[in-house]
């Protein structure tokens, strides 16, 4: 199930790596994660649920959903979708018990002390690091749990929209490599390292781990910017836990980063930009897309993205949704049906579509939990799509010195994420040691972001941000009076 040829991407696989899946010898490539190597070997079922024994496979592909956990080299609950494959690895399903001889090395402890710690190396985090490095003489650290920098960008083979000035017309993957090169000039980078906690001992501290290498980091920072991105929304339907039901981002990851196909033919739930782009990317990788279903009466994404896939014969069913996934151990089909005005299925309109995967592309929720742990007040804001960390125009949360930027703050676009990262960095820098041209830099960045949010498609972000700032100032006033 590898992508053999691709019109845009070149996959340079590394050397062969031998590993064992439930005792069976298998091979993957250097650069694979455990999950992509299993997929390339045709393994979709990674295990079973502990109680009801329902089959389990990966869903999100970015280490956030726990659906792909397996026992690796004796260590249970390893997220196989973000763990690089290594020679001789022993990968086992359905083993939760700790082995008798503890495989744990006593973790190595490392301490670090930096001016600005950035959690997440997507466009927001990288832009923040570059901006901080350009304007000030500070130590900057980026921590990301993926094996490479770039966040969502490394999965985007399409040319980006926006203004020519900000690199529109370039593909996401190209923007990611350019930014990475810049960021490496200004920041230290810890990859494959997850930030798992925050604590305050008179200063800000982050706890991070590199589970595979067995290193625990204690990072002291004057300022922290959380640029942790977003998490895929889930949808309730029958059998939605079958292997073969994936988040859109998960498919993009295995397909466009690792060159492994999610299946032969699938359907996509959701006709926003993510669903539409995913459909196009699947076609490019040589995977069939049988249908896109959209609950709303209209296509949510850009018309031009819809037109691109329609021209290839992919039907889009508006006012439709998925009722059920069909299959025993993994997806063998999907039942879709029409929705009435009250969002109920219209009986008699069911259609069964044969497919071996179902992609869920119904939206994202900001990953603000770490920021919350660091003291940022969160609030449910409908326009922002859920619980978000309240912050001001400088991206500072209600917790002093704790910033949030990009999709973690509010779901938007890469260009907005970058500008937010820059604003956070400049403000953080200025409060460490005042910049002479602070006002001017911020003013320019603000203008850039408001022009991005000007049009019809920017309306949602505009409203969301207003509510977030409002909430922030209410919170501050509340604190003062109370």
């Amino acid at each position: 199930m590898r992508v053999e040829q691709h019109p845009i991407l070149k996959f340079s696989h590394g050397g062969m790596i031998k590993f064992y899946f439930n005792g069976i010898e298998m091979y993957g490539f250097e650069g694979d994660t455990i999950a992509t190597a299993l997929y390339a070997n045709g393994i979709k079922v990674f295990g079973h649920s502990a109680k009801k024994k329902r089959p389990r496979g990966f869903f999100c592909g970015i280490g956030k959903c726990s659906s792909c956990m397996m026992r690796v080299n004796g260590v249970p609950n390893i997220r196989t979708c973000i763990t690089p494959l290594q020679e001789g690895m022993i990968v086992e399903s359905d083993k939760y018990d700790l082995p008798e001889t503890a495989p744990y090395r006593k973790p190595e402890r490392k301490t670090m002390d930096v001016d600005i710690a950035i959690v997440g190396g997507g466009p927001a985090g990288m832009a923040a690091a570059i901006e901080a490095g350009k304007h000030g003489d500070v130590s900057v650290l980026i921590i990301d749990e993926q094996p490479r920098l770039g966040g969502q960008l490394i999965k985007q083979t399409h040319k980006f929209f926006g203004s020519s000035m900000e690199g529109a017309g370039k593909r996401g993957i190209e923007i990611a490599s350019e930014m990475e090169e810049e960021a490496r000039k200004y920041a230290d980078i810890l990859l494959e390292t997850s930030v798992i906690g925050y604590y305050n001992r008179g200063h800000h501290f982050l706890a991070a781990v590199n589970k595979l290498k067995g290193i625990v980091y204690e990072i002291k920072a004057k300022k922290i910017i959380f640029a942790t991105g977003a998490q895929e929304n889930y949808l309730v339907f029958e059998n939605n836990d079958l292997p073969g039901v994936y988040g859109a981002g998960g498919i993009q990851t295995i397909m466009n980063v690792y060159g492994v196909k999610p299946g032969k033919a699938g359907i996509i739930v959701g006709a926003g930009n993510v669903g539409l782009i995913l459909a196009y990317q699947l076609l490019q990788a040589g995977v069939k897309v049988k249908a896109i279903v959209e609950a709303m009466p209209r296509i949510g994404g850009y018309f031009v993205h819809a037109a691109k896939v329609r021209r290839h014969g992919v039907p889009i069913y508006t006012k439709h949704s998925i009722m059920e996934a069909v299959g025993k151990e993994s997806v063998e089909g999907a039942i879709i049906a029409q929705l009435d005005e009250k969002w109920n299925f219209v009986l008699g309109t069911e259609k069964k579509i044969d497919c071996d995967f179902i992609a869920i592309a119904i939206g994202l929720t900001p990953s603000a939990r770490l920021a919350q742990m660091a003291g940022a007040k969160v609030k449910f804001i409908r326009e922002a799509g859920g619980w978000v960390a309240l912050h001001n125009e400088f991206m500072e949360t209600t917790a002093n010195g704790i910033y949030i930027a990009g999709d973690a703050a509010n779901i938007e676009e890469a260009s907005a994420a970058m500008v937010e990262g820059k604003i956070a960095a400049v403000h953080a820098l200025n409060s460490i040691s005042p910049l002479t041209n602070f006002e001017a830099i911020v003013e320019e960045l603000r203008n850039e972001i408001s022009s991005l949010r000007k049009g019809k498609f920017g309306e949602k972000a505009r409203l969301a941000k207003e509510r977030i700032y409002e909430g922030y100032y209410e919170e501050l006033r509340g604190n003062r009076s109370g």
Partner: protein
Amino acid sequence: MRSYEETGVVDIGMLKMPAEEQLRKGVAITECIQPIPCNPCKEVCPTDAIKMDDINDPPDIDYEKCIGCSLCVEVCPGLAMFVVRKRKGKAQITLPYEMLPMPERGDIVKALDREGNVVGDAKVIAIKHGRTNIITIEVDEELAMVVRNIRVEK
């Protein structure tokens, strides 16, 4: 609600049609009809034929200024620009193509409409490799405003 928002297929009535002699010269037809924040087509045009006052405005092509150079076809991230030229009872259509397999010059491929239906055969008369590969095909003249994609069967 506009019908294209439901179908993902442009309503031809919404497109600004060039005059016959402009089509004989060969001009860009834009199917970018919805306001989105995007402007690379305007920036790349060598003759300033694309009018766009605000980055959110859809492009408006001045068919007198347009020379049919197809630079906008290559740069457009929406793959929404095409160049159409009528010649000797045939229509030459330049379109973006980001799929595999790539056809070769002289190949006969399937001509598809905006819904991916096969509406006839097309002859590949030119290929330009670039950030997005662009292909010029020749089809029957009456298909000038119908064909917007190809399928290469190899």
